[in-house]
């Protein structure tokens, strides 16, 4: 909040500047629009003047020597002369000060011409008032100044030299000019007030618009800041969750390592005591103890178990993109089966020899097959030999590969089936809870999906579906 307060003056200045910009934008738009209006108006007046000259002038000038065709010429030529410069300026310099002042003068000359063509009819003088009103559309009172001067000058000069042209009579009263000037001045006052009011309103509107814009901007900025905050706290939460998960993982793996390490340490103690015992001294005597040999083997097995635990952890922690190579499934499954630890189940590899070859990361896939097969054989029920069947299909005719590992074991209780792919979740007494988490990760990295269908007491089917371009899009 403090920052915002210190920013206040700058913000006000910015709003003022923006309001000016908006105001001038509106003004310019008005100037250009009214310029266009006058272009149309003048062309209409020109056509009207020619028509007027053709139809009306002879009667307006009845009894005089003026010839009809002269008025027509005047209408065409003078009208053209009056119209041409404003047209040119409105085309080349729309909205400029010069353009609208020239237009103002030209419009008043049009009044003069029309008054002349109508034989100085008093009704035609209303054209002057109409024109001034039109000019007020500019909302720029200054254009009324040259317009008024032109009207006044025209009336003055013509009253002196050619009164019929402007009043329709040859001897108007000397103050006739003043009477007209008074009404023009009266309208000018009204129009100047209207212009000033219009400009003031325009300013108010611009000011409000700028304020609204500023408000919108402030709101957007606040919203954006809120979103940034949200993102930051989300990231912080993710980080702390990840840290917590890593902590749990470390604890879990640490605990898992303690059992094999205890066995290895005690086996090692036993062997070294046997070797150093003065009564049974000598490697030969120690070798005669069957336990020494047994424990050497045991150390090897337990160290392998430690390696496996660490390997699981690394597989999980280091999520590398799959290195895709064409890899036939049937031999890969044979390899995985050969690497399974001792178990009480029969594993049948029923993957067809002729199955199309998918692109896989061989090491990753062998690992997940081992994890799945190990779960399958461990699920074997105690009362009978388990049977695990691996099947596969698809891979041709635009169909995805479907690899299925099915067992007839104990099944997964429905209340835990949703959790089995979560890291650290395990139902085994000895297990890191990483095996299926690794499986899920690898399948995901290959762009595939994994489904589990399990019936407690009857068995479990795990189905991996790989898209045709297996993994191609995954990296």
């Amino acid at each position, binding site marked *: 909040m403090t920052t915002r307060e210190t920013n206040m003056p700058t913000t006000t200045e910015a709003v003022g500047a923006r309001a000016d910009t908006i105001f001038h934008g509106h003004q310019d738009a008005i100037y250009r629009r009214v310029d266009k209006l006058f272009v149309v108006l003048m062309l209409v007046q020109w056509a009207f003047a020619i028509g007027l000259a053709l139809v009306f002038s002879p009667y307006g000038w009845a009894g005089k020597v003026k010839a009809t065709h002269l008025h027509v010429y005047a209408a065409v030529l003078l009208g053209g002369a009056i119209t041409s410069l404003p047209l040119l300026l409105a085309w080349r310099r729309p909205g400029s000060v010069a353009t609208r002042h020239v237009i103002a003068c030209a419009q008043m000359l049009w009044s003069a011409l029309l008054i002349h063509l109508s034989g100085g009819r008093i009704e035609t003088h209303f054209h002057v008032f109409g024109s001034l009103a039109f000019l007020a559309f500019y909302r720029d009172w200054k254009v009324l100044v040259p317009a008024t001067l032109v009207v006044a000058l025209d009336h003055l000069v013509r009253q002196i030299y050619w009164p019929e042209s402007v009043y329709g009579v040859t001897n108007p009263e000397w103050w006739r000019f003043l009477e007209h000037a008074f009404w023009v001045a009266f309208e000018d006052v009204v129009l100047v007030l209207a212009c000033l009011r219009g400009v003031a309103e325009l300013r108010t509107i611009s000011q409000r618009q700028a304020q609204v814009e500023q408000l919108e901007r402030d709101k957007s900025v606040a919203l954006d800041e809120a979103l940034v905050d949200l993102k930051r706290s989300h990231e912080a939460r993710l980080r702390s969750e990840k840290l917590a998960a890593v902590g749990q993982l470390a604890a879990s793996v640490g*605990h*898992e390592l*303690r*059992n*094999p*390490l*205890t*066995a*290895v*340490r*005690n*086996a090692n*103690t*036993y062997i070294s*005591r*046997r070797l150093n015992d003065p009564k049974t001294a000598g490697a030969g005597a120690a070798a005669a103890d069957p*336990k020494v040999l*047994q*424990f050497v083997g*045991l150390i090897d*097995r*337990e160290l392998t178990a430690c390696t496996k635990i660490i390997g699981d952890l690394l597989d999980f922690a280091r999520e590398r993109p799959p290195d895709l190579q064409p890899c036939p499934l049937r031999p890969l499954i044979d390899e995985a089966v050969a690497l399974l630890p001792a178990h009480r189940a029969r594993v049948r590899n029923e993957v067809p020899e002729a199955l199309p070859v998918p692109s896989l990361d061989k090491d990753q896939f062998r690992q997940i097959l081992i994890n799945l097969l190990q779960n399958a054989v461990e699920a074997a029920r105690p009362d009978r030999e388990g049977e695990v069947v691996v099947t596969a299909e698809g891979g041709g005719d635009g169909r995805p590969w479907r690899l299925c590992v099915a067992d007839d074991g104990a099944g997964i209780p429905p209340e835990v089936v949703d959790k089995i792919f979560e890291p650290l979740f395990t139902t085994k*007494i*000895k297990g890191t809870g990483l095996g299926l988490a690794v499986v899920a990760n690898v399948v995901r990295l290959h762009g595939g999906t994994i489904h589990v269908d399990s019936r407690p007491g009857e068995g479990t089917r795990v189905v991996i579906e790989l898209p045709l371009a297996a993994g191609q899009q995954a990296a």
Partner: protein
Amino acid sequence: MRPFRVLVVDDESALRLTVAANLELEGLEVVEAASGEEALALAVAQPFDLVLTDVRMPGMSGVELYRRLREARSDVPVVLMTAFALEALIEQAVQEGAFAVLPKPFDVQDVLPVLIRAMRRPLVLVIDDQALLAETAAAALAASGVRAAAVTDAASALRVVGEGNVDVCVVDLVMPDVSGAELVARIRAADPTIACIAMSGHDVPEMMRRVAASGAFTVLQKPVPISALQRVIAAARARPARGQRPG
């Protein structure tokens, strides 16, 4: 004298085998059981001097085994092995009088003194000049399965220690005839394997420092709940021999 008989219980055969082999090498008679159920049947049917059991096993856990043994009126000492440092189960077993808890991984050679100590069924000696306090504490320990005795003066304490079957002394620091630090030093001189747990009713940092320097296992400020005392006794009993291997 017949050799000590130990029942080793763990579902991990590798761990069970190696621990058993080392105990046999020490001249103990070892019987192995792969589950809590099997161990319970064996312990009820045959005499044992010690049950050394894992905590986490499929089926009956080590703690459950301990309880079932107590229910079967067996007073065989039980030492638990665990890979998990903080487990509510273990805490409960200690409250119920389990002798000690060994954190894995351990080397049988290092923890052998703990096992030998357990098999001797040693006494916890409570020394406090206020007889009521001393006897209440001893009775509370005995009620939860810890063999305990109470004395009210330094001379009696040293006499009982001299009989050779005390492994933990709970010493009140404020005694009329001798300072707490000196009593601890004299007990340790009589039997260096004894762990002294010193207790004080007041916040006396300097005295506590001296007592710790004279070889006390730990110093507690009264009032000490009996459960906390049991936890400290079990920890004192599980301490390995001097020269424990690092890590």
